């Protein structure tokens, strides 16, 4: 049966290459559009301005040190503003209202607790609307964590050495163990930058994946019209052969298409989409989901012309709400929730995360979105097979 499937695949591939649709839809149009968008709108995004809320309920040396460090940082100058807020509740309200992009909350007694070697918790409030502010707050808290860990360890060591409790703080600081002094990373913003060329490159890849794989499943309906599908089904071949034969080619061309978009974006704009293995995994999962959805469309419509129309509508709706045409953070809050109903939304979220994380990204970091994309593929594919059984298979 594999030979029969390969025969169908070979004809499908030959047809797609011969009529030019494979090259045009899979390569030329998405790469051209992504490049044009990248050239016109590319650059660091979001704009390098963020307001970080600062809630100091501790009034001790740690919050003071953080404030000092942030204000002194050359990289943050003009980009990050600290805004004092009286409490966590007010910080949440300001965050929800979009007045601040993130907030750092020092609880009362934090400095004292750390000084006594008991450690402490700093809360960070973030909003997806301002990834930059989240990155700054995260970088600050990472440094605080490191300092707190060092201080806690030093205090424990001194206590174990038999030093009286009232002398511990003085001894630790005098001997150079990391005190409350805090140094920010060289460029705390490095993780927050995602070039718009990456957004548009990945967006076009995600959008055109639907068209590329959809063309193969649409071909099933064309074959039904020609009568060749019935002729194949009347032959000694398994019922799944024509669907699988075409699907394999559509999926393969879809993967090639998204990879070409990725490569062209990287080469033309010199940007990175993040860890290559993780990016590839996300793209393959997206193509799988797109294949299943377009297969579902083909199983539910009657003609190839209907399939064209429905696939186009589905593709653009998923692309718009899923952040393939407009970055997710530019969408109003309700629409961002809708994004999670589309494969493009999960793909966009995963690729943004990987691009933002740079070399630190990994497959594990985007396992959630990949899992959701696979689940979408499974649900849509299963429903499609049931539909095919009623129309194209039996």
């Amino acid at each position: 049966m594999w030979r029969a499937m390969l025969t169908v695949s070979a004809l499908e591939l030959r047809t797609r290459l011969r009529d030019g649709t494979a090259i045009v839809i899979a390569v030329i149009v998405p790469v051209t559009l992504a490049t044009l968008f990248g050239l016109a709108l590319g650059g660091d995004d979001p704009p390098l301005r963020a307001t970080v809320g600062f809630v100091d309920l501790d009034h001790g040396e740690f919050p003071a040190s953080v404030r000092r460090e942030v204000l002194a940082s050359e990289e943050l100058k003009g980009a990050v503003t600290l805004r004092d807020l009286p409490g966590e509740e007010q910080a949440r309200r300001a965050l929800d209202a979009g007045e601040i992009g993130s907030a750092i909350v020092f609880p009362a007694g934090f400095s004292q607790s750390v000084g006594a070697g008991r450690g402490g918790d700093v809360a960070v409030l973030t909003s997806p609307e301002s990834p930059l502010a989240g990155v700054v707050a995260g970088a600050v808290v990472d440094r605080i964590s490191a300092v707190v860990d060092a201080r806690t360890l030093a205090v424990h060591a001194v206590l174990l050495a038999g030093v009286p409790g009232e002398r511990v703080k003085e001894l630790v600081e005098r001997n150079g163990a990391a005190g409350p002094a805090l140094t920010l990373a060289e460029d705390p913003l490095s993780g927050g930058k995602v070039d718009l060329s990456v957004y548009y490159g990945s967006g076009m890849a995600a959008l055109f994946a639907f068209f590329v794989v959809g063309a193969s499943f649409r071909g099933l309906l064309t074959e039904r019209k020609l009568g060749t599908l019935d002729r194949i089904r009347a032959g000694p071949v398994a019922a799944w052969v024509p669907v699988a034969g075409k699907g394999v080619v559509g999926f393969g061309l879809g993967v090639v298409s998204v990879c070409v978009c990725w490569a062209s974006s990287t080469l033309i704009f010199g940007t990175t989409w993040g860890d290559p293995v993780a990016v590839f995994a996300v793209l393959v999962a997206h193509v799988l989901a797109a294949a299943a959805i377009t297969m579902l469309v083909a199983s539910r419509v009657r003609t190839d012309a209907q399939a064209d129309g429905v696939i186009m509508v589905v593709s653009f709706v998923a692309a718009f709400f899923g952040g393939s045409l407009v970055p997710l953070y530019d969408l109003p809050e309700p629409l961002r929730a809708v994004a999670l109903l589309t494969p493009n939304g999960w793909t966009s979220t995963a690729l943004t995360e990987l691009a933002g994380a740079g070399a630190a990204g990994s497959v594990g970091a985007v396992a959630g979105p990949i899992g959701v994309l696979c689940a979408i593929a499974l649900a849509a594919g299963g429903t499609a097979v049931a539909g095919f059984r009623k129309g194209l298979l039996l």
Partner: protein
Amino acid sequence: MTATLACEGLRKRYGDVTAVEDVGFSIAPGQAYGLLGPNGAGKTTTISMLVGLLRPDAGTVLVGGTDLAADPRRAKARIGYVPQEIALYPELTGRENLRFFGRLFGLARRGLAGRIEEVLDLIGLSDRADGRLDTYSGGMRRRINIGAALLHRPDVLILDEPTVGVDPQSRKAILDGLELLVGDGMSLLYTSHYMEEVERVCDRVAIIDHGRIIAEGTRRELIAMVGSADKIELVLDGDVEAAYAKLRTVEGVIEAARTGAESVRLIAEGGRYLLPALISAVEGSATVTATQVIEPDLEATFLHLTGTSLRD
């Protein structure tokens, strides 16, 4: 002897509409079987069930003894299906179309090229095999359409209206080819709007109407259903009145009538064999200058049974 193709009790309903009800027949090896019926009678639905495109609501299909429902791939390997439409790829050449279906149906690569040549030769398209299908005439496409069903050497060829829209030359070539195949031992199930094709090609015929087979048998058996009397038209020279009186008394003549000053119409059993006796009977009174024997045909039977013309 195991029938090449046999079906029994086939039924297909779409909601309240019964497309096919209790259809059954059997085709022996080397037999050409015709399925006649007006449009909408259930021919294509029946064929779709026979080739595995439609699952019957009831009934069985056996291909060479293999149950189509139980082992569809084995059963289908023995069937060559020629659909009503040209079910081929117009952007491919005739040879490429045959190669695709040959590979798809499991022919070994080594023997495929040779088999394609054989089929091209059989359908008379060896010299045009490398032209694109969309440059072929309607008749040539029909012939390739049949050729694609022959590649895997099926035991039975099922043809659904194979000559629709073809020129007389191609029709003749198709029918000649089919007669050759039957002569070589292949079984045939043939549906057509053209009565003369069915009469020429098929040994047995079933007439289907409103989804049911209403008559089945050899051509002669079917015709006998509406009576076997022939119509004989005679033109006479001489004493026509005296000759007419003599003709009425000839054994086998059922009815006689004067149809003109010099012409007589007789209704008789076995008209063709009765002619010498008729000519002898009028000797001395008149001379027979022209004769025409009109035998009852399938068309008449069809009209009688279905109340409609085949081309309606």
